[in-house]
């Protein structure tokens, strides 16, 4: 089956989460021992109980859901780090504070299935929400600069881009048409009447 048309406009949030699970490496603390495992995305292990080890996020999620490990949150998924970024976000209105590209997806996975591994998860959750709002307001301001050719949006995260994509690509398309040269009929069947184009209307 070919892909449904609405999916062609923009990937779904769940698809971006899938990509983040695939592309992000995190530390886990296993609750068990296991030899080395070789996967298509690389080799991992050997796993020893209580020794932190780096694995793809999807592996960590899988093991966590089976109660076989704890997830170690990345440095940025902490109250101190996010508070600092929120301050930066507010004090520098001209640019987005640098967050990991897939911060929304990674944070969602942690807070969803491993909230017990994140210190002060509720505070982290609310800081992320505040960040989202400040950044949305910034985006709104930035959009005033959109023209039919280009808009610089450096610092936006993957989920933020995705949410804007269908609307912005369409809006830019509309502007492009509005700014375009006239679509004059290429040639008319009978142009014997075209004698006085300069008369003006």
């Amino acid at each position, binding site marked *: 089956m070919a892909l449904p048309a609405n999916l062609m406009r923009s990937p*779904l949030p*769940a698809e971006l989460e899938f990509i983040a699970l695939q592309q992000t490496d995190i530390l886990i603390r296993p609750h068990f021992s296991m030899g080395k495992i070789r996967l298509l995305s690389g080799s991992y292990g050997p796993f020893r109980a209580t020794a932190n080890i780096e694995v793809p996020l999807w592996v960590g999620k899988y093991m966590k*859901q089976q109660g076989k490990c704890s997830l170690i949150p990345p440095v940025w998924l902490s109250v101190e780090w996010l508070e600092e970024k929120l301050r930066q976000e507010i004090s520098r209105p001209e640019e987005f504070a640098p967050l990991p590209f897939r911060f929304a997806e990674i944070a969602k996975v942690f807070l969803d299935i491993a909230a017990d591994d994140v210190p002060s998860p509720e505070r982290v959750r609310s800081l992320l929400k505040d960040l989202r709002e400040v950044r949305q307001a910034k985006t709104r301001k930035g959009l005033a600069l959109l*023209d039919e050719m280009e808009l610089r949006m450096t610092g936006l995260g993957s989920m933020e881009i995705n949410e804007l994509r*269908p*609307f912005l690509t369409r809006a830019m398309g509309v502007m492009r048409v509005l700014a375009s040269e006239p679509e*004059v009929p290429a040639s008319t069947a009978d142009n014997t009447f075209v004698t006085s184009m300069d008369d003006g209307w």
Partner: protein
Amino acid sequence: MDADYWSFESCLAEQARLPCTLKLDVEGHGHLLGANESDLHVGAKVSIPMWLAPTLILNDWLDFNIPPPFMQRVKRALNANARSVRLSTLVGNGGEWYGFGKLVADVLEESQAKELQAVLLTTFKERFVDLMDQAQHFGGIPSSAGADSMGDTGADFREGLEMTERELFLLAQESAKAVRLWYESTDRKEH
């Protein structure tokens, strides 16, 4: 509002009619130009659908007037506050104000065309950020910013959206909703 053969919006915009004055006699074909009588003479008023107008104008068969949705009075209102103008009223419900305007610009001489295009672009830019705000408000995560700033004018604004804007509104609303549902979803397993 795009350059695709299958675009329904282009089709809609082309149904809009342009008020014209004949520059030659048309014997027996008046009904084709939307008139009641079949014989029309120089100076007769007809309104020609936009899909047909360019060819007839290019052939110098008729003069046309700037249609009401793009007249000075409207431009002045847009200048004052583009967000408070109900574009949907100007072109009828389901009408294409931008698409119609571009087709009109395409048959104008250059300086007039540029001026009308500038009006179309400026109007679009001044409205589309509010449009996105409103759409996110109705589809997304309740936020302390956003649509509140519009207050009660929000409903008026939404009703005043013309077709291309409505489509954009739906796109933004759909995205915001997808993100909200994703935030609300969970993979937690009950142990």
